[in-house]
């Protein structure tokens, strides 16, 4: 069974904003990346999955349950990192995590481990925390109860590169452990390093949904260069990781996701 299943989901906010007839699914255990510029509809899609918005047409299901009608059952399995984080500003980090633990009614098995992993001191009041520290609290809150499905809306925003790396590692581990992951991002590297498939969303519709590998293949360019001698050819092949065949060297340039992305978007970002 698909862990996440979205069918013909539409939501028109007018002036070409919203999402239009989105259909896709994420099988259990897959990491799916959602890439798109600001205002493309990533967060709107996620809000539907979270049961914050009621589908105007179409439907979305998580673990076979309707995201709007049975949001409480859906939420049992979901860990969510919101794109815009607003906390109960009156609490400290640890008070907040304790509240979430009690409120959701599930023991936070991984809290300690995650706090250590992100070097987070949770005793500080939330309103005194920097953006990055708040982001860490949100990450811990989403993952501490070890949910089966992760919905992550730009989860590394505000984190420094070191912490971004730790987060990517964590997500890879989670995938190894069989979690289903939906990761929305505009960081190409993050998606490239964690996801199996990518949906490129533009103006509320998918411009492409494919595996990272296929996307790369489609945009693979290879060049064959002939050099004067075999020695030079071998050296050249070594330097540019090409395939040497006599004096001929074949080099493939794999486009980064960013370049592929710009291909689909034609450089400029439209509304």
């Amino acid at each position, binding site marked *: 069974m698909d862990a996440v299943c979205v069918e013909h989901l539409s939501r028109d906010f007018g002036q070409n904003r919203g999402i239009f007839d989105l259909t896709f699914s994420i099988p259990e255990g897959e990491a799916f990346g959602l890439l798109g510029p600001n205002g493309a509809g990533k967060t709107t899609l996620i*809000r539907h999955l*979270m*049961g*914050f*918005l*009621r589908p105007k047409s179409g439907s979305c299901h998580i673990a076979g349950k309707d995201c709007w009608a049975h*949001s*409480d*059952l859906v*939420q*049992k399995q*979901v860990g*969510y990192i*919101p794109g*815009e*984080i*607003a*906390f*109960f*500003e*009156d609490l400290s980090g640890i008070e907040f995590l304790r*509240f*979430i633990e*009690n*409120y*959701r*009614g599930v023991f936070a098995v991984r809290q300690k481990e995650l706090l250590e992993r992100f070097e987070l001191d949770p005793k500080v009041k939330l309103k005194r925390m920097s953006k990055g520290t708040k982001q860490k609290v949100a990450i811990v*809150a989403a993952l501490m109860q070890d949910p089966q499905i992760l919905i992550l809306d730009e989860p590394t925003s505000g984190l420094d590169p070191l912490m971004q790396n730790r987060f990517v590692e964590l997500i890879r581990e989670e995938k190894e452990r069989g979690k289903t992951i939906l990761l929305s991002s505009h960081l190409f590297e993050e998606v490239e390093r964690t996801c199996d498939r990518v949906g490129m969303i533009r103006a509320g519709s998918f411009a492409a949904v494919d595996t990272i590998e296929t996307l790369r293949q489609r945009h693979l360019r290879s060049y064959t260069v002939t050099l004067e001698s075999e020695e030079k050819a071998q050296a050249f092949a070594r330097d540019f990781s090409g395939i040497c065949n006599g004096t001929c060297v074949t080099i493939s340039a794999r486009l980064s996701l960013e370049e592929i992305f710009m291909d689909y978007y034609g450089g400029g970002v439209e509304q």
Partner: protein
Amino acid sequence: MNKALFLREMKKSAKLLLLFAAVITLYVSCIIYLYDPETTEMLNRFVEVMPELMAAVGMGTIAGDLLEFMVSYLYGFILLIFPMLFCILRANGLIAKYVDGGAMLWLTAAPVKRRKIAFTQMTVLVCGILLLLIYTTALEFFIASLLFPGELMLRELLLVNLGLLAMHFFLGGICFFASCTFSDTRLSLAVGAGLPTLMFVFQMIANVGGNLRWIRFLSAFTLFDPTGLIAEKTGAAMGLIGLLLGGLLLYPAGIAVFCKKDLAI
């Protein structure tokens, strides 16, 4: 009901309750202390000299015994305004503020139905009103027994305060409904605070009398009639029941709206 949420919100209510309890303590003890035939005569002279102004703040009736005195000087203004302020502030903070600020996402992104969230918040509001009025009743009875033993009939006091409770239960319902309906705190406050305040102003205008007495039909405060309740009049009882029914309609309506609406959080 969600216990963790209930406890958190009751803790937040506590500060406001303490503040209002302190203000009410001050006024109630002062007013009861002032009760003595001579000052009553003085206050009555005020009423004779400037009947409109005194009537506007609900101090129109010429007071006889202690409870009537209290009805004149506490139940027309102080005990209407302060619990009403509590309703307005708390109701707005329980739903609309969380939606507007975005923190509602932590409550909805959890295996807790929206109905349960809203029901918990409603319970917090109603418990707050109940606590404030139980405190007020106990305080009134305590101070009256201390200063004027045997003057205050508990049964009559309870009847009046039951009416007051119904009044604030209804006002809380308006505030709660507004809080559930509007995702913008400004709108929630405009309706949740504006409507009760407007009705209170209407009540003040109607109390002055004259050509504008009809305006009392636009105010729910008309349904709270302490003097009628003491006399156990049917009309006053009907008013009380009306307020209770209104509240019983408004709270579930607020919950239903909250369950169905889109949350941009």
